[in-house]
């Protein structure tokens, strides 16, 4: 059923390409659509997309529409953007999940490694490793010692095989040589509740979801998967202090269809890089546990390839799929 639509979009794209003949000085010649591959909500990628849309619209005078096309681990959006004309008028808000993790797990409908040009990084958020209060584990060293003593007795929650949380846990196990039991959940909410109630022992999640439970004393933070400590939890160690290889950065980046002219990519990259250093934005995101950081187009592509190699190795080592 999807085929005719797909070819329709491709055909339209090709026609547009022939009709206009892309040149950077004409950019943008019509409204820009920024596709977000997640549900419409107040989440970081949605907020970033709306901020960028406002700035591009102000700078270039063309309307910028933010459109949510969630589904199939970002593939619905990836297919739409990769099939659009590579002229910079259709862009995708990507993330490590949509552009790397899915592709590292399996063959995908759209090969996110080759179908896109990187434009710029937006920033990233680390994960938080935490423990239920009743388990009596209050540091990473504790966790490693307990798990080494009795392998495969400590349980941890994630939001499913191949999710960032699961892979972060596999990475930690690989680096520290411990073995803990994976308990997958359908959704973040139920997983969080079960960590709080003690149904599972250890949690891999984002920081901000856990702050309330840490304050209430139900959950003990063990480490953030970053090179530096988080300003939200200054007393919690950064994992790099003990295991420099166990860092996990969940980043967001802006992507255009492969073949987009370099001048257009550079123009867009400048916009993002100017935005991510705005002090009030930096502060707003820091409160949510995220670090804003821009990059050049090539740098983003290097990050994609490096992450792909890292996660592919972890996936094959852990024997997933």
């Amino acid at each position: 059923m999807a085929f005719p639509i797909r070819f329709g979009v491709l055909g339209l794209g090709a026609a547009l390409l022939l009709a206009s003949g892309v040149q950077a000085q004409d950019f943008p010649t019509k409204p820009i659509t920024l596709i977000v591959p997640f549900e419409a909500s107040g989440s970081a990628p949605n907020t970033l997309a709306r901020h960028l849309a406002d700035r591009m619209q102000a700078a270039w005078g063309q309307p910028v529409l933010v459109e949510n096309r969630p589904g199939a681990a970002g593939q619905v959006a990836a297919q739409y953007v990769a099939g659009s004309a590579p002229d910079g008028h259709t862009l995708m808000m990507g993330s490590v999940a949509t552009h790397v993790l899915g592709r590292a797990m399996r063959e995908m409908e759209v090969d996110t490694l080759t179908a896109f040009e990187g434009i710029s990084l937006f920033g990233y958020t680390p994960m938080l490793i935490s423990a239920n209060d009743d388990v009596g584990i209050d540091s990473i060293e504790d966790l490693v010692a307990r798990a080494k003593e009795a392998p495969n007795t400590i349980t941890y929650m994630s939001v499913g095989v191949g999710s960032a949380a699961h892979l972060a846990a596999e990475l930690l196990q690989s680096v520290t040589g411990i073995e803990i039991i994976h308990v997958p959940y359908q959704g973040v909410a139920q997983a969080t509740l079960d960590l709080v109630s003690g149904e599972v022992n250890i949690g891999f999640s984002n920081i901000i979801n856990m702050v309330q439970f840490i304050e209430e004393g139900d959950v003990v933070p063990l480490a953030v998967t970053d090179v530096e400590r988080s300003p939200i939890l200054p007393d919690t160690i950064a994992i790099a202090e003990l295991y420099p290889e166990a860092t996990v950065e969940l980043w967001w980046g802006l992507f255009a269809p492969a073949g987009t002219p370099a001048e257009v990519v550079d123009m867009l990259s400048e916009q993002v890089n100017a935005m991510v250093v705005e002090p009030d934005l930096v502060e707003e995101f820091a409160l949510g546990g995220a670090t804003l950081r821009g990059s050049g187009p090539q740098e983003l592509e290097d990050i994609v390839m490096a992450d792909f190699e890292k996660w592919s190795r972890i996936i094959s080592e852990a024997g997933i799929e």
Partner: protein
Amino acid sequence: MEFFTIGLPAALTIEALLYCLAGVALGTFIGVLPGLGPLAAVSLLLPVTVYLDPLLALIMLAGIYYGAEYGGAIVSILLNMPGTPGNAITCLDGYPMAKRGEAGKALFTAAISSFIGGAIGILVLQFLAPSIVTVALSFGAAEYFAAIVFSLVAASTITDGSVAKGLAMLGAGILIGTIGTDPYTGVIRYSFGQFELMDGVTIALVALGLFAIGEVVMAIGVKRDGKIFAVKLRDMYPSRKDMKSLFWPSIRGSAWGSFFGALPGVGPAIATITSYATEKNIAKNPEEFGTGRIEGVAGPEAANNAAAQTAFIPMLSLGIPGSATTAVMLGALIMNGIIPGPRLIVNEPELFWGLVASFWIGNVLLLVLNLPLIGVWASILRIPYHLLFPGIIAIMCVGVYSIHNSSFEVLLVLLFGLIGYFGRLLALPLTPLLLGFLLGPMLEENLRRALILAGGDFGRIAVRPIAGSLLVLTVVCLIAVVGLGLMRKRSNARAEQAA
């Protein structure tokens, strides 16, 4: 106490009152409208509610649900066509009353009994749900697994139709629920070559297809009884005798409704049948039922409204749907980022108590809408159907597309619409399908998680006190239902032999 300190203030804001009024008015409208039930209406509004505050969204959706039970009685009485499945029994005595020129009396009875049923249902909900929560807070995966098994068995065996068909459709729902990436293994199940199915299908698509498209297409070309009885407010003024004869049947109907409604997965239809049978059994002249007895309207109408309210008990206290419509409302909660379950009442007291308070407000509003404004609703019956359904189809398409900006999902809704349409033609029940779709993944997830946490030992699940007793209760219910069925068959056979 929370009802007064948290609930009423939350439900008495201007916005909440407006959404409540919109919900019950739309519900009455939908109930009166042939070819579109509350399930379809609630599903149609799902895309819109994503943008609303969760409390307002629920107030409106719930208003449509119980409002339709009121409205459905109007068509049952005036046209001999049930507006919702819960109003089917009302036709039996309501329509004969209308034919006799007592339409006003029948409508008055329906409205008052509905209100009594609704009120008793809310009271039961208000006291029972929080006490269930105190137990359910200690629920782990094993307890959930047992509670869901109980719901599934209750939903498919306590029915007025064929148990085999119910179970088969439950299976179909469970299978549709497994579509998508399995979080436990990463395997993508049943994508049938469509990568869009990697995330599975959402409840909005299934419910809209089965109930909006299915019902709308079924109703095209249905011939209506030409005559619509005129009603005036003056005809509705009741006599003392009427009030007396409707009171006790309403109370008994409310009791049946509250009981069946609170059972997860058991709809209001079975409560109305039981209530009608009770009234007939205890009447002095049972042969008069079917010729226009007030009791035959009062009991079932109280029952379906009580059931509509108590259906919220399992939904709000356990996160397990009490009926197909509450299943869709659970979907609305999930889409709004709220996790249904025992913590809902604890973590979101405003949501629970505000909703309960809005039920009181809504039922009072419905009484007003149904008594003085009855003429307005009766006139809606005169809108020709061929000027309604193309609009419903169009708005459904736009609604579905707007959820995810996805044409694929519009086509998927049509696929479920075909299942809904042909299911109706073949008399296959669709409610079990929807419940299976929602409960199947919950069942699978909780069983697998319970097994992982128990190290693969099912015995360790069964010896947990709550989980174990629920599983035993399920087996007892199953034996009882099957046993009763066999006994009934045998006694029927004996009766036939004797005759």
